């Protein structure tokens, strides 16, 4: 290993492990603290930006503590911090200080889907014209389905700027499925029922539209209403897989 590489290795180890073998005494220790703080702050700020509802739910200081704990064990693996924190929902599920908030991991998983939807490719939205029952209906790149044990979608929606003050009080404590889409310039979250979720899942599984629709009809769905809701939400793209 070159001296240059050996320095990087020793510096990186001192940053992450805290034990410096670098020469330089208190000066290097102080600089290491500055760099450790700066890089940790950048990663923690990224988590706060990517999980704003989780931060609102637990409060700024508890959130900062959980973010710091996560950054210590799962630091960024690449420079795109706008996508950092894919494992944060699973981490929160096991994070002891939030053990009593057993619904928090679900909300975090939904927020992750929102970030993914925000930055997904600009697929053309399917407007419902030119239906072809013989071909699959293709999910839009931004479309995500998040299944939750609690009312994660309603909790998330109640913490959006456009939400009214009574939204939290109206939440019914029941399992929810969230549909995440990006119909215009903005991400949209909709609570959907199991039949709608199955319909979207079947589309992802590349069943033909005819097969997907027949399965939904057997489950008792009003196909016209279901279709209008999903297309209106921007769940599908005009691109057929295989094109």
């Amino acid at each position: 290993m070159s001296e240059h590489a050996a320095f990087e290795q020793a510096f990186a180890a001192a940053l992450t492990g805290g034990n410096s073998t670098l020469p330089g005494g208190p000066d290097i220790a102080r600089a290491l603290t500055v760099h450790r703080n700066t890089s940790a702050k950048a990663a923690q700020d990224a988590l706060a930006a990517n999980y704003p509802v989780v931060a609102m739910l637990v409060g700024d200081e508890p959130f900062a503590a959980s973010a710091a704990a996560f950054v210590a064990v799962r630091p960024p693996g690449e420079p795109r911090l706008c996508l950092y924190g894919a494992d944060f929902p699973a981490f929160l599920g096991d994070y002891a200080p939030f053990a009593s908030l057993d619904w928090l991991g679900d909300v975090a998983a939904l927020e992750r889907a929102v970030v993914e939807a925000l930055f997904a490719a600009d697929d053309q939205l399917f407007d419902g014209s030119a239906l072809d029952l013989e071909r699959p209906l293709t999910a839009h790149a931004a479309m995500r389905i998040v299944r939750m044990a609690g009312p994660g979608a309603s909790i998330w929606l109640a913490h959006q700027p456009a939400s009214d003050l009574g939204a939290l009080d109206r939440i019914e404590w029941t399992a929810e499925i969230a549909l995440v889409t990006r119909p215009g310039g903005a991400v949209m979250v909709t609570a959907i029922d199991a039949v709608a979720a199955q319909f979207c899942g079947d589309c992802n599984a590349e069943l033909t539209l005819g097969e997907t629709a027949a399965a939904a009809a057997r489950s008792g769905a009003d196909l016209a209403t279901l279709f209008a809701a999903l297309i209106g939400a921007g769940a599908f793209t005009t691109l057929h897989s295989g094109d």
Partner: protein
Amino acid sequence: MTPTAGLGFKMEHLDEALSATDPGLWFEVHAENYMVDGGPRLAALAALRAQHPISVHGVGLSIASSQPPSRTHLLRLKHLCDRTQPVLVSDHLAWQRWDGVHHADFLPFPRTRAALAHTADNVAMVQDTLGRQLLVENPSLYVNLPGHAMSEAEFLNELALVTGCGLILDVNNVYVSAHNLSFDAAKALQAINGDAVAETHLAGHAADSDPSSPLLIDTHGAPVNAAVWSLYAQLIERIGPRPTLIERDDDIPGFGALIAERNRAHGLLTGQPEYV
């Protein structure tokens, strides 16, 4: 590029940025924030690009490393440059990547001949891949590492000579480094080959939040201070006008306050003292 002054772009200022008509105004964006597949952020960048020249400023190439830049990251940068057609593309004389971890900061290294050779190889790889010149910026330094074989100015001058890269001279970073490492900022600025300087940066700094620490920290969280303005004016007098960026990444004020700082730099560059 005509040497005018630009502003670090903040998404919350999009509408004001789109309608701004200040002569020569350009915007600098952090490359990594736009390395995504699609969505409103890329749409905003395209809209901004339709109104103003864009400079793409990276924080993640890790060019002063013994390892080559991540191929994936480099290709993402190329894709962004191809779609945005920026007037300037830049990153820092620092490293971030080691053993699968990205340290989101600008890490120092001993400026040895070997480090210069590695950095030059990395800069050449970036320039070959992008098909354009890269500008390399001096970071803020917090410790005088043992083992330097050359000054930062000597290192940057030779890097520019060997690779044909340009330099971003961040006057605030020189000021902060000079304070932290006890050298003369004005002399350090004078040691930089002015012909290689393609852009300058101006930003604010702060005292370390640890009161026992004597360090200044490059926070980008305050207006440019008087000493940095003075050093900047001396630099421009020596090397002539260069595209100049006002950076602000924390405690961000309204667009008007940032434009006022930007216009001060613009006035200095264009010899219009009413701005100053």
